[in-house]
């Protein structure tokens, strides 16, 4: 059985003007330790998928299974626990707490998690040992994203969800961040799901899931993904 499994997942957002179906019978599977890229243009339903996978929202119908656990139909509190224990988030805008140092931002996540890694170890791992006691505002964008990744990985989650992690970064920094994510997948066996509108990332992935008009357009399995250094955008 696959590590992550979506079966006929549907999600409709209701508003005064009209109902928007953001996920229309989405089904796919992801194996443990895979580097997955979910790609699609703006408004295709990527973020909805992220929300559903990350336990920030629940689907209207279908099944969502992570590591054998049904995520659909969980109560808000169970969802929170799921986010807390099983999911690591990397945001496009890093979302660091401005008033906490790099190390403290990692500690903030570790503080609420049971099987967390040592915060300072994580900081060291993302190569920010020297800047551990700096505030986010004193760090560059790439450094901030590293802190963000350290914060996500420190929880030792089952899934690492990354929402356009390079979106706010220049090419070179973005590459470094991608490398970091890639390494944590390949070296530590983390299951990484990268959500982007940028098709250039597709060669990196073990599995590419293309989303279009709220539906799965294509799922491609790549036996030999390209190295990070080889891609450009």
């Amino acid at each position, binding site marked *: 059985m696959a590590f992550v499994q979506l079966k006929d997942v549907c999600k409709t957002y209701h508003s005064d003007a009209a109902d928007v179906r953001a996920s229309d019978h989405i089904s796919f599977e992801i194996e443990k330790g895979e580097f997955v890229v979910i790609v699609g243009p703006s408004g295709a339903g990527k*973020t909805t998928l*992220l*929300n559903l996978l*990350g336990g*920030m*929202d629940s689907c209207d119908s279908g099944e969502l299974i992570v590591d054998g656990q049904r995520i659909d139909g969980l109560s808000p*509190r169970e969802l*929170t*626990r*799921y*986010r*807390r*224990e099983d*999911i690591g*988030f990397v*945001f*496009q*805008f890093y*979302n660091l*707490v*401005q*008033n*906490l*140092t790099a190390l*403290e931002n990692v*500690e*903030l*996540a570790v*503080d*609420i*998690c049971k099987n967390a890694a040592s915060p300072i170890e994580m900081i060291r791992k993302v190569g920010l040992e020297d800047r551990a006691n700096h*505030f*986010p*505002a*004193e760090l560059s964008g790439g450094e901030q994203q590293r802190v963000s990744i350290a*914060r996500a990985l420190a929880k030792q989650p089952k899934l690492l969800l990354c*929402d356009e992690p390079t979106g706010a970064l220049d090419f070179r920094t973005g590459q470094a961040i991608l490398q970091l994510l890639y390494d944590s997948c390949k070296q530590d066996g983390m299951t990484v799901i990268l959500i982007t509108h940028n098709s250039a990332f597709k060669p990196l992935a073990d599995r590419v899931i293309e989303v279009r008009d709220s539906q799965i357009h294509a799922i491609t399995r790549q036996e030999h993904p390209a190295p990070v250094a080889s891609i450009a955008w």
Partner: protein
Amino acid sequence: MITRIYKDTFRKLFRAKGRFVALFGIIAISSGFFAGLKVTSPNFKESAELYYQDTRLMDLHLLSNYGFCQAEVDALAQEPDVLDLYAGYSETAYLQVNAATANPIVQVYSLPEGAATDTAINQPILTAGRYPENAEECLMEVNTPESVQIGDTITIDIDDPDTSILEQTTFTVVGEVDWSMFVNYERGTTTIGNGSIDCFLMVLPDAFAPDVYTDIFLRLVDTQGMNSFTDTYRTLTRQKGDLLVERCGELSKSRGEQLIAEATDAMTDARTELDDGWAEYEDGRQTFETEIADAEALLADAKQQLDAGLVEWQDGNTKYESGLAEYEQSKATLDERKATLEAQEALANNAIAEIDGKQQYLTRVEQIVGGYRGSTLVQPYPTEIQTLIEQAAAYDSDAFSLSGSLSDFFEAPVDSAEKLRLESTIVFYVHNCSATLTDELAELERSAQDLTIHRNTLNNAYAELSNAKAYLDSSKEQLDTAKAELDQAQSEYDTGVAELETRRTDGLAELADAKAELEQAEADYTAALAEIKTLPDGIEWYALDRSDNPGWSSYGEDADRVDAVAAVFPIFFLLVAGLVCLTTMTRMVEEQRTEIGTLKALGYSTGQISVQFLIYATLASVLGVVVGTLIGFQLFPKVIFLCYKTMYDFPYVNCPFHWDYALICLAAALACTGLTSMIACQAELREVPAQLMRPKPPKQGKRILLERWNRVWSKLSFHTKVTIRNFCRYKSRVLMTMIGICGCTALLLAGFGLNRSISAIDDLQFKEIYHYDCIAFYDENAENPDALLDLVNQTSEVTAFQQALLKSDTIRANDNAYEITLTVASKPDAFSHHVTLRERKSHDPIPLTDDGIVINEKLAKLLSVQVGDTVELAGAYKPVTITAITENYTMNHAYLTPACYTDLFGALNYNSIYLNFVDGTDEDNMATHLLQNDDLLTLQFLSKSGGSFRQLVNSMQYIVLLIIVCSGLLAFVVLYNLANINITERMRELATIKVLGFYDGEVAAYIYRENILSSFLGMLCGLVTGIFFFRFVLAIAEVDAVMFSPDLPWYCFLYAALLTMFFTVLVNLLLFFKLRHIDMAGSLKAIE
């Protein structure tokens, strides 16, 4: 086009409903509170003024010691200052009520002219029934005992019928009125009964039958349209009043003439009376002299008779005494003779008896011998025989022994010769003896006859003597009677003499008195004759103005007190509210940064952009002010009026919309919202659009000072670190929260403190300081104050009393002067039974000493003096040193010992008595009992003065309660608003930690830790600030005559802290729902 963009902006602005409502709420509450409290006092005064104008209340009330005649009334009416006037009558009497309690004292007033047509000066307002139509009808009022109803017939008891001007004493109640002359429950004072008038009645003038009017009520021209609570009005009326009083001589000329005429008539009568008196005196003197002379003659006669009687009695007595001596002598001679005779007779009788005995013996011997002729006896013989033999010895002679013969005879044998011889011998001898004895007897009987003759002679002599004695006795009796009569006559005579003396003395004294009296009357007459000419100068007028109406001043003072409270609280309130508005608006502008940038980029001018914030602010301000003032203008005056309603009889309170205060509020609100937003907007707009459209760089995190101190910092928990760091990061907001909470806590603390300060006075002043039950004021010139003291002393309900002097005086120091009550206790050592003098904090008792004066704390504060300073008392020869400062809360007092007083002022005349009663004494009965004494003027019962004070305190407490409630509301709104800002500002951060998997509770705790910390710190600051604020309010709200208890007990802090904490928790609970609904997807979006 522009409107469309505004529409979009507005949509965004109003989406944050909570903020708008909070802004509106703060403005509404604070403007309502400010304006409502501010207008209360003016409303009170204006309502009163309106009532006064509607009822055409008099400006001056004139009284005269001689009353007013029609001519005077006419003269006054001609005065240019006088608008209109009416003259009337009034008299105090008792109202008969069928109740166990004392009859209430009622003041009967004549109804002003035109009352029935509602055109009168001092127009009473009919609340029920109708106006009287004839002299037998009257109007009652709200204070009239409840047992009296419309339609009832009531009777009044006149105190002194001689001076009464009331013709009618029985009335039918036909209606009930309110009268603007009396605004509270007081009805003035009088000299009858317990001294305070309970209610009034209004009757037609026809019910009175006087020569002159007793009262004149007039309105002045210049005061029309003036508010009578202003100083201008007071000064003006006082001036005009003084002027009229000064011109009394001129205005009352006709009254003077009338008085002279009346007096002259009276003098003529007096002359006649005096002459009659002299004539009567002369008559009396003559009658007296004649009477005395007659009595003297009568007594002289009696004396003569008495003397003659005495001489006569003495003669008789002498004769009697000589007779008696003679009699005694004769009696002695006779007694001697009688004794001799009796001795002789006894001898003779003895001899006869002896002879008889012997003859019987001899006869017996003969018989015995005859008997024993035939028998012989041997010794011992039978007793009789033996006796015979023994007795026979007496008869033995030389020739014959009878005893021997007898013995021989009995022993001789029977029929022997011997026996016979012996027998015959014995018989013979016996016969011989017997014969001899018979001869002796005859002899004796002859001499006995002689003796009998002697006895008869003697008896005759005795009889004669006895007759003489009887005569003597009778004459003695006569003499005694005569003597008794004489004694009687003597004593009667003596009495007569004494009586005469008394009558003479009395008569002389009486005559002398009569003469003196007449001479005095003569002198008086002469004096009066001289005085008549100056009579018009003796007319004195008194002008009373509205401030002399009972309750008028206290109404003004109460209104001022509300004003004093209104002066401080709302300002503080506004400050807090303004601060909050400021923060809110600044924040709002900052939030709209991107929009502003976009608009600017699109080419809108600065003005066009900022005007939308102005509109928003204006909308909130105008709505808030309108709603706030509309409610405040009605709520506060009405609620406060409701509190005072128990004390004052105003029929209505007028609550107009005060544009001035509404505009002030609006201006303040606009300044805090509109102006702030404009300034904030301008600051933002200084940047170029490109910069504006980019997100504002997040505020940089900062290391705080504490982090340098690694030893402590490293030991803190992660959350504590975060809290402290956040706390230091959002300094301005934290500061704002702290100031807001600090302000609210301070308001609450001051409110609670003030509430306690006011309510504590009652117990402190009337239970711990004053112990007396009553002060009885008496006439200080009373001839016999001891009678009053005796009456008090004999009243069993009185447990302690002492005389004192209580007088109003002016005390001066450091260029300040205050009216005080000066008390001189006759027994300073026992004064603590009536009033406790003590140091407020230590409760150390303060003794009254001869060294100086004791004044109360408030007075010391007003005068800025301390112990050891000197103060001057009006009328004293020299300044006096303050020896102590005593705890006291109402009115200003100074205490002196009699010695100290005499030293300062000279003579000391007591004028009052402090009285303590047994618990449960009926004060009405006590009043009636004590007022038996005519010297007693009034009784001031502590329960009454305490009662009215208590009402005042209660109404003040409502105002303070109102303040507390408003402060609480403000605290709530402020907290909510600031916490709300805190959340919206950090929405992204909160969304992020939610995504990170913080449970709802943890998210809340994350932000609450800061909220609670800042609230708590703010509260602590507030508790400290509150102390100063409390003192400040106390200093301002206090009037000169009252000291609020300056203590701030711990429970006030507790209440203020608890209430603040309660609001903090409540606000945090409300925000919890908001936190739960934070959209996590927000964390994914770009920074706005």
